């Protein structure tokens, strides 16, 4: 018997309520309720390998704070690991938007990049 899973899409502020039909093995078969095709990608990922973007801040040498994000999504289960690595580094005093603060964070392939400028 195929199972159903209800999801709220987080791709955009629209927040589509989606219904995903899953096989016995848990693989997505079909998606309903999505407004755009990014919803299908999200639903498939969410049922197999859920991913999130992490945003946080990093302390600079001077004591100032600079905001950062992962430049791609990372596995949802690794959010706290990624946070620990982010909280373990100190950024240089001069950082611009897009500068890599941590390359390949926790081996996820994502870089932690600055999202604000210090100055």
């Amino acid at each position, binding site marked *: 018997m195929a199972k159903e899973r209800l*999801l*709220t*899409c*987080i*791709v*955009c*502020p*629209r*927040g589509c*309520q989606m219904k995903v039909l899953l096989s016995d093995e848990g693989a997505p078969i079909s998606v309903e309720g999505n407004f755009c095709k990014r919803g299908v990608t999200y639903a498939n990922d969410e049922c197999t390998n859920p991913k*999130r*973007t*992490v*945003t*946080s*801040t990093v*302390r600079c040498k001077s004591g100032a*704070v600079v*905001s*950062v*994000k992962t430049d791609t999504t990372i596995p*949802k289960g690794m*959010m*706290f690991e990624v*946070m620990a690595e982010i*909280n373990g580094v100190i950024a240089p005093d001069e950082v611009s*938007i897009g500068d890599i603060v941590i390359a390949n964070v926790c081996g996820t392939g994502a870089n932690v990049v600055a*999202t*604000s*400028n210090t100055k």
Partner: protein
Amino acid sequence: MKKDLVIIGGGPAGMAAAVAAYEAGIKDILILERDNALGGILRQCIHNGFGLHRFGEELTGPEYAYRYEKMVNELGIPYMLDTMVIEVSADKVVTAMNRENGIFSIQAGAVILAMGCRERPKGALNIAGARPAGIFTAGTAQKFVNMKGYMPGREVVILGSGDIGLIMARRMTLEGAKVKAVCELMPYSGGLARNIEQCLNDFNIPLHLSHTVVNIHGRERLEGVTIARVDENRRPIKESEEYIPCDTLLLSCGLIPENELTKGAGIALDRVTGGASVNGERETEIEGIFACGNVLHVHDLVDYVSEESAIAGKAAARYILGNSNKEISITLCTDGRVRYTVPQRLTEVADTSVYFRVADVYRDAKIVVRDGDRVIISKKKQRLAPAEMEKVELTKDVIASLSGGELSFSIEI
């Protein structure tokens, strides 16, 4: 000092209005900003999700703000930081002050009000109990964590399910705090569905709908709160009281447009939006004074703030150049299920997007717009909710065809 256009506020609204006015031919602009940088509240909104409509990509708040800051700088639009406007008069004299210049006045050709909004404070909530340290609005906590790098506490209860509260539930959790509950007085959330999902459900943070905080405990520092379920009249039910130990209470109970300057200019406020009443050009009832962004009505998305502010910027430019679009005598009225519309009045010539919010959650309903008895727009919606701003497009042809008088907006189930 004289300026063609003075813009009060250098957040997303003020910057977008400035860029649009400049591109429409007005070069003599001055933006007045009270903070020490442009960007407004976006500077502390370090989460992603901004810009999908405006830029077609997902940006964080500081990145979105920087896009506009760059445009302002590239166009060479002047701005003054650390400058507080203390008065705007009906004849468009703007009085401001800063450390360098003391108090000074500017005679403006046109003024755009872009002061944004602020959070409903704890004093406005009338919660019983003590007044210990550890109670913050969600936005204050956001500033501490994201701009200063300080954690306001370790064990957190959040009252109100507005988006900032939800975002802070996730942020505090990621930084190692334990968020024990989010209580929402209403039977539905005040935030976007995606934020319930990614900020609460991802971390198993319980959302208690129809719940409120009825007591605050602690002397020096908050020690706990008592929460209770509320009945359909939003009165707490005594038997449902529950004590939750915590050192921090965050309040996310609504945003209020910051309109002291508007009132000072003698502009009456719309009782529902808390902002000025405007026509399609975002012009207030005083000619040449415009308003846009969260000072006019609270938006869900900055993308729509930018869109609205560009309308105000272009219109201010037309006003200064002496070719304003004329207001027409059609009033937009609402049925109560639609709580308000912005704009409240229409302007000829222009295609107009009418924004509004609904009073309750409605399922399988229709948005109906009527010119007298004639239905001119009927749009089916699976779900309408107070937390989600809605939009209806009136083309200039539709506006030209209106019979006059009232245009009514209603929700039919």
